[in-house]
């Protein structure tokens, strides 16, 4: 067995979008708490982006399961709370709800429409925004952490069965989420002091990338020193069949390029020229790297060898040439 592909690219999309949405929400929630309505365009974008991202991601997940329509009925299907998948399903549900509500509260036409019928929420919108932001941060962080814990809960996939994984996925979630918001802030935010927001965000990205890179390094080096199964999996990424996408895309595009872009932007070198292209490159690379990270981690999730290599042969060796 070389590569895990039962949970494949679509599940990677779900994990990625879940993280992206969570990170984007946290970013704009914090912005909104810190600066109020000053950057409402960005906040509104981030809120909708997060709701849609998590929504679409969840849809991808549903498409991937054997019985999507049954899965949709959450209160029937996700009932066993001993399972992380149940916890996750409700977290996603909550996140979509909160992200969506938060987004609605930042969308003027909606407020107008509601206000004409029901004054209370519109009059109290500032309070609602704060409550939704605070609660939403917790829920969305929960989603980000959950994407890693989901894989980590089964104990017989050594590459996944570790707290490093949720740490990595959370770091990546924040990194990609903030990246997305920064991209908008650069290209779409028209308010005064937009450049100040950009600077702060770019700074955050640099910090997040450094954190993510550290976590990635610690995670892989831990794995490379652990059981033979863990080594097998980790080596797939570092030196094995998946090394090219790992080093080129995850590390190169996902971490190095956005880092360089942010550094140069902050340094002001290219601020006047290429005002659109460079940040765009940084954003796109960051997102591609984020999805690829999820996909490669999934692919490297090999099962643990059991009592003996012989038994492994038995259980993996289904003789069927399709």
């Amino acid at each position: 067995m070389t590569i895990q592909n039962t949970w494949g690219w679509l599940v990677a999309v779900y994990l990625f979008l879940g993280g992206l949405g969570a990170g984007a929400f946290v970013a704009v929630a914090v912005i909104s708490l810190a600066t109020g309505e000053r950057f409402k365009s960005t906040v509104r974008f981030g809120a909708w982006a997060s709701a849609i991202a998590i929504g679409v991601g969840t849809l991808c997940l549903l498409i991937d399961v054997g019985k999507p329509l049954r899965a949709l009925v959450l209160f029937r299907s996700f009932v066993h709370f001993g399972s992380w998948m149940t916890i996750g399903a409700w977290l996603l549900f909550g996140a979509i709800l909160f992200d969506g509500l938060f987004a609605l509260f930042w969308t003027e036409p909606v407020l107008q429409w509601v206000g004409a019928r029901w004054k209370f929420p519109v009059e109290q919108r500032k309070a609602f925004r704060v409550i939704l932001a605070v609660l939403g941060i917790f829920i969305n962080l929960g989603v980000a952490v959950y994407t890693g814990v989901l894989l980590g809960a089964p104990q017989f996939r050594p590459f996944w069965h570790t707290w490093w994984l949720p740490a990595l996925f959370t770091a990546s979630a924040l990194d990609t989420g903030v990246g997305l918001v920064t991209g908008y802030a650069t290209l779409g935010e028209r308010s005064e002091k937009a450049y100040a927001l950009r600077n702060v965000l770019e700074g955050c990205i640099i910090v997040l990338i450094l954190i993510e890179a550290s976590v990635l390094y610690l995670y892989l080096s831990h794995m490379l020193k652990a059981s033979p199964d863990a080594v097998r999996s980790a080596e797939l990424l570092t030196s094995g069949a998946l090394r090219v996408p790992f080093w080129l895309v995850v590390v190169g595009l996902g971490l190095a390029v956005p880092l360089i872009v942010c550094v140069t932007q902050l340094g002001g070198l290219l601020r006047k020229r290429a005002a659109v292209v460079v940040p765009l490159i940084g954003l796109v690379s960051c997102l591609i790297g984020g999805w690829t990270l999820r996909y490669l981690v999934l692919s490297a999730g090999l099962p643990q060898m059991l009592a003996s290599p012989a038994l492994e042969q038995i259980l993996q060796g289904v003789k069927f040439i399709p």
Partner: protein
Amino acid sequence: MAKQYGFWIEIDRCVECYACEVACKAEHNVDLGIKWRRVTNVWSGSFPNVTFKTISLSCMHCEKPACEAVCPTGAIKKQPDTGAVTVDQTKCIGCHYCFFACPFGVPQYGKSGAMEKCNLCVERLAKGQEPKCVSTCPGNALHFGTMEELSKMAQEKAAKKLAASTQPSVIVSK
């Protein structure tokens, strides 16, 4: 006191005839491409110093099923009276989580999208019959009973219970 039924496979009596695999499929109308019971050869060495052993395994009906623990819908349940780990296909959403949890790669997914696997032939047990695979083995290599019964039978053959932390209810012996 809950009973735990399981299987005992005598490797030295198995002739890789696939009767158990096909009997199980016919009994439960299993989809093509899915095997509730698998017959595999385990090779060692290379020609001319080569040999192989054949083993037939289905679900381990573990005493601590990892699949049951991770199933979000509660479709997977360990039956208290037989120890069989069964899946309720009307509840399963086909998320594949059990596949990742199971250290033996047992869960498979058929045309319906839901998970399916060996159910210890609970419907046959209810009629006082053995699982189909056991009843069909021409070589008398596959046995069924409570773990205590099987242990006693297997003792003299120096059997080794499959070692894994989910405590599978299968004895593999020479």
